[in-house]
């Protein structure tokens, strides 16, 4: 083996190739398209165009509205469920948890189609409440992603902390507000990041529930199907920036809050 000496370093070659091919290169292409026009000249027109066009701005706001509403509904539903699951005395706890996770294993389009039928039955015409229906669809889709991290965080909480709070004179409500809730923040944040961002782009739910309004995902799709690679790339880039910003904030908040919490 004189010509090729194998060392641990060589093990990273496949991963480096993978990263260059599928992460770095596409990102560079994305940057290139986002900052050029049809003739290949450098321009910031795509960026300014996005923030001056009322249509694209409207889509951004609508996406935010959908994502915020979905996240809030998910959180309100998931927290009590996760809390009861984590603190209750179920003999078959894992089975109950599994019941909440099980829908994730069923094909997504099947679930949404089923939901569509149910909603049609209840509302008659789906077009009447498109926003409302979309939030229901998204919540149905993303709820397990909110329950699981919160459940994990609460069940890993040291029960002695709660006992300490009671011991120091707190009632059970006070103990929950001052100990359990703040210490489950890492789980909540992790749940939010797993629900909020996908909810901004998952336009399949809108399509299937006959909501014709665009969100960020469908907007990019529409640019690309019209062969406007430059505008579409810019929107993708802006979305990336929002995600980066969000993750950064999330990380900060997590660090400043408890260190005991667990991320899924």
């Amino acid at each position: 083996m004189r010509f090729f000496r194998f060392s641990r370093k060589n093990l990273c070659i496949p991963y480096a190739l993978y990263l260059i091919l599928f992460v770095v290169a596409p990102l560079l292409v994305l940057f290139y398209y986002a900052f050029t026009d049809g003739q290949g000249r450098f321009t910031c027109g795509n960026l300014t165009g996005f923030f001056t066009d009322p249509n694209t701005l409207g889509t951004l706001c609508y996406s935010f509205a959908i994502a915020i509403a979905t996240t809030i509904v998910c959180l309100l539903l998931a927290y009590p469920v996760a809390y009861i699951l984590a603190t209750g005395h179920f003999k078959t706890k894992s089975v109950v948890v599994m019941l909440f996770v099980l829908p994730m294993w069923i094909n997504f389009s099947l679930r949404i189609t089923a939901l569509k039928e149910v909603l049609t039955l209840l509302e008659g015409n789906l077009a009447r409440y498109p926003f409302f229906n979309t939030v229901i669809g998204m919540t149905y889709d993303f709820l397990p992603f909110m329950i699981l991290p919160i459940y994990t965080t609460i069940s890993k909480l040291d029960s002695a902390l709660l006992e300490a709070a009671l011991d120091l004179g707190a009632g059970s409500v006070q103990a929950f507000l001052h100990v359990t809730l703040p210490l489950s923040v890492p789980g909540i944040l992790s749940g939010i990041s797993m629900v909020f961002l996908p909810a901004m782009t998952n336009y399949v739910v809108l399509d299937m529930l006959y909501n014709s309004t665009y969100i960020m995902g469908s907007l990019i799709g529409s640019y690309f199907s019209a062969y406007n690679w430059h505008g579409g790339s810019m929107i993708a880039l802006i979305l990336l920036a929002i995600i980066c910003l969000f993750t950064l904030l999330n990380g900060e908040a997590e660090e400043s809050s408890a260190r005991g919490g667990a991320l899924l």
Partner: protein
Amino acid sequence: MEQRTNIIELKHITKIFEDGFAAVEDFNLEIGRGEFVTFLGPSGCGKTTTLRMIAGFDIPTSGEILLNGSPITHLPPNKRPINTVFQRYALFPHMNIYDNIAFGLKQKKTPKDIIQKKVKRVLALVDLEGFEKRSISTLSGGQQQRVAIARALVNEPEILLLDEPLGALDLKMRQEMQLELKAMHKKLGITFIYVTHDQEEALTMSDKIVVMSKGKMQQIGSPEDIYNEPKNAFVADFIGQSNIFNGIMTGKLRARFCGGEFACVDDVEEGTHITAVVRPEDVIITQPEQGIIEGVVSSVIFKGMHYEITVESGRYEMVIQSVKSARVGERVGMQVEPDNIHIMIAEDHTNFFVADINKDYRLEYNDTILDTSLTRLIPGSRRGENGELLDVSGEVVDITRTKVQVAIQPQNITMTDDQQQGLVHGTISNLIYKGDHYSYVIHTDIGQDFVVDDEYLWNMNDSVGLIMPVEKMTFTVKR
């Protein structure tokens, strides 16, 4: 009016968990105001459960807890004037030190300026002035411990409960904290209830020690009482190192155990079966002919302050602490001052003896094979190709290190005139009539005494063989 000095009383407390495990059984205790009481016992003895019932985290299955004479058995923890220092501190990780300590006062809606003053005072008490704004994770174990104590003390509880608070600290830190806690107790005058499995900690700090085992109180008393006058073999064994022997009273203030006859100071009726306890530091090594018993030194270990010398005398083993070393293989005599022998009346007359595993991997005692399955005795063991005994990991069992303790009840041993029969032979050295049977002590030619119950009358000094059916024996493997 009656002056009440007991701050807390536990009356017939029993705690049985959902799985049927009885953690505490019929526990009775009175604790005086300002006392430093320690619950001492091995893990699983119920000491923490008892503490949790006083704190209010667990509700007793039956029995009553009185605080200043009024029942608090079912009062939730936040309504009790009792605070706890938890095993792993249980400090709130999302709050700084100030907020941790102020937590209890804030629950009581204490005005801010008073909270500030009290937190400052209690931080000074635990030697952490100026630490208010620090976060918990920046503290060492010892400092976290102090914060935990401060957080409990700031509420001015009537009773402070401490659940093995020093368990996570290193030895030096632990010894320092022991003295500090004791000083704090003296200064504050609050009742301390302390839980530990560390006998040294208990002896150092407490006014009163409650020794517990298997959910029951074994003995209660001052550290001196517990150490010098253990009530039973468990306490003697748990507190400090002890040589414990079964024996019998042979005359007024005379007892025979460990193959010798010793003078003692406990006046127990002649013929009574006893358990004798001798502390290792109380055994005096003499010339072979000058001791009451003699034996051969089998091991010497240097322990820093002293040597730990093990002497084999016949079938018995004596552990001795001495500042002077000895040579392995040396013949020595041993002597014990009468007031250093602690005699307890034995409630249980079970005979114990130690059997060896011979070269053929059979159990052997007094050159007789005890026909029992060793593979069943040692869990996971099996026979190898050549009949050798293999343990769980497939290694050959070291027969010099593995001993088997055999226990047999007095009523299961039969005496016979036929000297050829029986596992051991000896002469009857004592007999007592017990109403429906006689209780004999047989002094065997290998030095061990056996207690035998028999309904027929035999004479003193009769030579007998002892038949012990293997199926009546219980075996414990010792390595």
